[in-house]
């Protein structure tokens, strides 16, 4: 389907990777931890390692959650854009196939949020 318009209606996507000055967007969703209302939107360097992403980006973001101290993120179940994904801590985000505006999902089955409420 397309827009019904009086002229040739064509526009550049506003969030192409070249608009982010060498960085890229990466979203991360930690299911059953809805204290964080939505997936996070991170601005990351494509050549950052996955291990550094966990330590320097993800862990500080979830620090306030009571489950965060017990979360073993590297051993958790991961998805990349809805497909199963095996993280390699020494690989870069780019070489792990994580491109601009990708979404990671990290499932920690033993952790069910505040008082088990999925919060």
């Amino acid at each position, binding site marked *: 389907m397309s827009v019904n318009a*009086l002229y040739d209606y064509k526009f550049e996507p*506003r969030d*192409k990777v070249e608009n982010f000055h060498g960085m890229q967007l990466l979203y991360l969703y930690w299911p059953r931890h809805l204290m964080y*209302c939505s*997936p*996070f939107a991170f601005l990351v360097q494509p050549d950052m390692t996955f291990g550094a992403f966990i330590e320097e980006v993800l862990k500080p973001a979830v620090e306030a959650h009571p489950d965060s101290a017990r979360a073993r993120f590297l051993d958790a179940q991961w998805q990349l854009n809805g497909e199963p994904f095996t993280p390699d801590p020494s690989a870069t985000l780019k070489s792990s196939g994580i491109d601009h505006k990708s*979404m990671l999902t990290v499932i920690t089955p033993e952790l069910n949020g505040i008082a088990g*409420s999925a*919060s």
Partner: protein
Amino acid sequence: MAVKNKKLNLKDKYQYLTRDMSWEPTYQKKEDIYPDERFEGIKITDWSQWEDPFRLTMDAYWKYQAEKEKKLYAIFDAFAQNNGHQNISDARYVNALKLFLSGVSPLEHAAYQGYAKVGRQFSGAGARVACQMQAIDELRHSQTQQHAMSHYNKHFNGLHDAAHMHDRVWFLSVPKSFFDDARSAGPFEFLTAISFSFEYVLTNLLFVPFMSGAAYNGDMATVTFGFSAQSDEARHMTLGLEVIKFILEQHEDNVPIVQQWIDKWFWRGFRLLSLVGMMMDYMLPNKVMSWAEAWEVYYEQNGGALFKDLERYGIRPPKYQDIANDAKNHVSHQAWATFYQYGHATNFHTWMPEKEELDWLSEKYPDTFDKYYRPRFEHWAKEHAEGRRFYNNTLPQLCQVCQIPTIFTEKDDPSMLSHRQIEHEGERYHFCSDGCCDIFKNEPEKYVQAWLPVHQIYQGNCEGGDVETVVSKYYHINIGEDNFDYVGSPDQKRWLAIKGKSSEEKTESAKQDAA
């Protein structure tokens, strides 16, 4: 005095105003005079079939509007002269007005522009007159709302730069983009979006129970502008219904086009109203009815009657209505939790409900509140009491269509987000729901351009890379005055001073209450 039977009756008078002051062009083609009337694919065969439900002539219009204004301003004056702001239930209430002034009043102005524009586009005189009157009404609403709330601006923070904030602040892109989407559509879609889906089907939820709630919280100025605006709304709603019936009756090819617009604009309006749900359940200290109850009366019951009436044209209730109906038990809590954790980037204060308010929510939402939300809120209250007020320091993912953070959950599993994602021409896009994802798929070119506040910050287009600079420099939110928790805010201190208490006394009495 004129003898009664000599007067023209209502129908005749209106006929003279609309039809007989219009004329058939002779030296220009009609298509050139009304160039936007056909490109949407809507087929109008006979404009004379247009039925004017409110046959309001210009003289009667000015007379009644003038009377409404006189009543309204008499109350504004009395409210200001008697320091009416001191008689509201609690200063937390004023935060709903801050959201209203920056989120809703600019929409009234956008509606004025929209109706002024489409009021030029129809070759039928009846539709043109109705749109022009509505344009004037909407301008009046924008002005009276600003007048009413200017009194609060003298006494509370966060109301000082609403128009500027509307164009820039992250969550205000939700209402702004809603209206921009409608105004950049063709004239028939605009009327279906705003007159029908928004005014007829959904605005009652804002202007009726919320305004009644304003009265219940002692705010006579707001309830009066609200109801005064809504008295015009009765006309607008009637226009909305008339528009839909007229388009549907004109040609059967119009039915699928209108159905798709209804699906789209119901969903967009429903998402926008998440903000109103939160205002009702969390920002009115004295409660009138819950958001779920309001949804039942004004959407399920009244909307149900409406869509039953439209069945004969081949129109069905909006797609994903079942999801919206189920979400009445969730959206207000999800929205409040979102604003609470991003309360460092808002022009209003947030807070955790007090114990009796939590109990009210548990009672009104027996199937959802205790199970999914109360533990989260009690945890936050405890953290705050121990000196760790929770703020989320990472920006949220936004929906490409409604621009709300992707906070909504699955109908069948409220512990999981109803996130959706697709690829379109090599770019990834994310959505809060199937409803918003469908809207994108129908018109991708429109939404790939979306100005998403989070991405704009990350692109460096908002005067700074850190939240503090964006909030103060780009948004004009005064840090430490307008934002953060209500508890400890200058607003709270001022309110306690008005009520003759110091904050220490309040804390003392709270401790005694607890003991």
